[in-house]
Structures are given as C-alpha cells and as structure tokens.
C-alpha cells in the first residue's frame, strides 16, 4: 500500500477543493470553540468546588477554664464521631495568629492583644468528610463538656457545595452534548463535501480502483479538515485562557474561588480538541465515502 501516495492525494484534495474544505473546517472551528469554552468552564468549576469542599471546617470554641484533661478527652471524643476526619487543637495564641492572618496586612493592629490580653478562646478545628452532615455533627459536638460555641458557616456552605456540584455536572453534560453536536455537524459538512464529489468516486470505480484505494485519501482529507478547523480553537484556548487568568489574577471574585493554573490544563484541553477534530474528521469522511462505495456493480 502506498501510504505516501494517499497522504499526498488527501492533501491535494483539500487544496484543490479549497472552498469546500474551508466551509467544513469552519464548522469544526465553531463547534470546537464551544466545546473548548465549556470544557474550560467545567474544569474550573471542578477546581473551585474542590477548594470549597476542602475548606469546610467546623470551628469549636472551648470555654475558658476548661481543664487540660477535659480538653484532650473531648478532642478524642470528637475525633471518633462519624464524618470527622481530623481534629486539631488550636490554643489562644494560634487562634490570634489565624485571626491576624485573615486580615492580611491590616491584621497587624491586633498584635496588641497578644499575651494576657488575648480575648480569644482555645478551639478545636474539626475537618469533616465531604459527605458529612454538618448540622448533625455540630449538634453532637455541642453536647460535650467545655464547649462554648460551634461554628460551621451554616446551611449556606452546604448549599454552595451542592450548587457547585450540580453546575459541574451540568457543564459535563453540556460538553458531552456539544461534542455529539460537533460530530453530527462536522460529519454532515464533510458528507456534503464528499457527496459533491460522487462523480469523482464513480469515475474511479469505473477505472478499476478498489474501495480501499478510493477511500484512503478521503479519510486523510477528513483528518486534515478536522486538524485545520482545530487550529483556531486551540490558539484561542491557550492564549485566551492565559490572558483571562492573568487579567483576573488567577481567582474568581475571592481567594476561595481559585482558577486552574494555565499549564498544563490548556495543553490537556488542546489535546482533547485535537482528538475530537481528528476523530470527527475521520468518522465523517468514512461514513460518507462508504455510502458511495457500498457495492453496486
């Protein structure tokens, strides 16, 4: 088999039918742009959801004057509760450090409370599993001796996580639907391109070309059209996301919503786009050419 010949013929086919090649490649470009957009969005949502989930923590304040024995007994008891992954004891000083850090540069003014004047309480920092029911856990913790206050951000935290989860699932569903739409659109355009050349296929058959010999260059053409159409979406993915990431400082609104770093994600998305383009070009042309090659004498 002369693969070189088929590749050359495929390339010539794209060039000599440039108008049709461009229209098919444009269909690829438009759909891949949409796929890329939703893919970037979904991947970022995934990242943000993970960040939010990881930051869910129950903050338990300990009453002043609680004995060291009670503190360590309660800590052990909380650690045994279902849904609790880790309990860390944080004394007054550590709490003040966290408090100051939360205010960033402006936090320095609270340094005056360090030492005897520290009004904060010792605390437990309770990390919980993703599927834990925060309100139930909070109620259980409140029942232990020496507990002053249990704080977990309330129902809104849970609602946010649920909302992000469904957004992410919706995004994935949309990407899947768009990919299917892309396959349909592109294979349809390639089908029209090849239908317009049914005479050419018929002539080749009358001259004694085997189906395989006729089909191969068309498959190469399909792949080339797919690749041609993926150039712009890939460039926009790499440079567009890079620009957006820098422009937004790598976050969406708050430090809790960290965007995914540019690299290697843009390369991974580009890889997926290239894969879709090649597959769709190949499938589209295979289906269309085979229709014309189904054996009739």
């Amino acid at each position, binding site marked *: 088999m002369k693969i070189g010949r088929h590749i050359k013929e495929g390339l010539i086919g794209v060039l000599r039918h440039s108008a049709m090649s461009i229209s098919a490649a444009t269909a690829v470009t438009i759909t891949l742009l949409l796929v890329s957009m939703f893919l970037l969005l979904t991947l970022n949502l995934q990242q943000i959801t993970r960040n939010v989930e990881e930051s869910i923590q129950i903050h338990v304040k300990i009453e002043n004057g609680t004995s060291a024995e009670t503190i360590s007994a309660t800590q052990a008891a909380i650690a045994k509760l279902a849904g609790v992954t880790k309990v860390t004891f944080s004394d007054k000083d550590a709490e003040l450090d966290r408090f100051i850090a939360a205010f960033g540069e402006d936090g320095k003014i609270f340094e005056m409370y360090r030492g005897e004047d520290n009004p904060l309480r010792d605390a437990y920092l309770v990390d919980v599993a993703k599927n834990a029911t925060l309100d139930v856990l909070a109620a259980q913790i409140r029942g232990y001796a020496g507990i002053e206050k249990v704080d977990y951000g309330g129902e809104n935290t849970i609602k946010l996580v649920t909302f992000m989860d469904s957004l992410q699932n919706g995004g994935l569903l949309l990407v899947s639907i768009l990919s299917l739409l892309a396959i349909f659109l592109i294979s349809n355009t390639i089908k029209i391109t090849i239908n317009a050349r049914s005479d*050419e296929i018929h002539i080749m058959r009358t001259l004694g070309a085997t189906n395989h010999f006729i089909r191969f260059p068309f498959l190469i053409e399909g792949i080339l059209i797919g690749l041609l159409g993926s150039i712009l979406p890939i460039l926009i993915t790499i440079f567009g996301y890079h620009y957006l990431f820098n422009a937004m400082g790598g976050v969406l609104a708050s430090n809790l919503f960290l965007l995914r770093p540019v690299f290697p994600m843009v390369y991974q998305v580009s890889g997926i786009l290239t894969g879709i383009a090649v597959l769709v070009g190949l499938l589209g042309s295979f289906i269309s050419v085979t229709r014309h090659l189904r054996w009739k004498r």
Partner: protein
Amino acid sequence: MLKIKDVSKTYNNGVNALYNINLLIEQGEFVYIIGPTGSGKSTLIKLLDAEEKPTKGTVEVGGVNIGKLRPGRIPYYRRSIGVVFQDYRLLERKTIFENVHFALEITNMPTLKARQRVREVLSLVDLADKANDFPANLSGGQQQRTVIARAIANRPKVLICDEPTGNLDPAKSADIIRLLEKINKEEGTTILMVTHDIGMVNSFRKRTIALQDGHIMADLRDGGYIE
C-alpha cells in the same frame, strides 16, 4: 476474445433490454455496434464493463465470465479493459497527465514506469503539450483523446467505446476514428465501438453489428450501414 452466449437481460423494473444475444469477437478486431435508442447498445456495454449481470447466458471477456465475478474482483477485471465514454468522465480537479496517471496508479505500477507510459500514450493521442492543463481548458475532441489515452494506458486487450464521437463535429470524429484505428493496429487492441454516426460507419468500414429492440438484426463482416 469476447464471447456472448445466449444472453438476455431484464431489468428489475421489468424492461427487457436484450433477447438471446450470441456474439463472438476475435482478438484484434474493430467492430461497430449500431442501432437506434432503446435497441440495447448501452445494456451491452454495461454487461461488458461489469456494471450489470446478464439475466440469462454468459458474457466472457478474455476468458473471464463477467456475470460470475465476485464484487471484490470487479475492480481488477475493469483494469483489464479500457472504456471510453461519450461524456468523457475525466477527473476535473486533476490535470490531463494526472488523469491518465490515475489509471496506472490504481494498478500499483511503479511511479517511474507509470510516468513513462503516460508520456507515451499522451504523445500517441497527440496531447503531450497539454499534460499540465485541466480538462476544462481542453476542447471536446482533446478531452475525448485524453479519455482514450487513459483507457489504453494500461494496455487493455479490449477497448469499449460508448459513442466516443457523440459530442464531436465530423472532422473531430474522423480524427478520433483514425486514432482508434492506430491503436487497433499498433497495440493490437480489440475495439468495440457503439455509435449512432451513420456517416462514419460508412466512411470507415469495419465489421458492423446492428441491434434493434434487443435483438441482433445483422452482423455485416464488410461493414457499412443498413437501413
């Protein structure tokens, strides 16, 4: 070379195109097939290039029973015959050289040898200077000569011509017949030519087979047209 025995053809829509045809054509002969529209000429061509199967009887070309060919073998059979169509059927996006070359490419002929053969046949049909032109830039006569070059490039034993002069003026038609005579003589190719052109059949006398309503009405060894 070409043996048609008790052949009848009825299409799926019930149309009877040929009735009990018997015909024997020897290697190196030049034969006209004439007849009015609907006489069965096109069906005969379709049987010979394996586009259709006979309903009854056998069609043999060079010892191959065409009706019994498996679909996968048909391309290989088609390479052993040359077909010239009235409507040319050239690949429009390929140059004249590439069009002729294509017929050799599909046989996997080594490139250098194929290019040499293309140059040979293009000079035979007097189109060497048009090698890099596209079909649309050529006259009807030149396009038909390209089709003939393509059909003989692979040195077929038999050349089937379906109204090759149908779209040409008398002078160009005579050129094409002279070219076919040259191929018949120089390459020893058997030529079977379907035509409507009475003037030409009378001017260039060859064995003439007349078809009417799917029957062979006459087989004139000395040629000439019968009313």
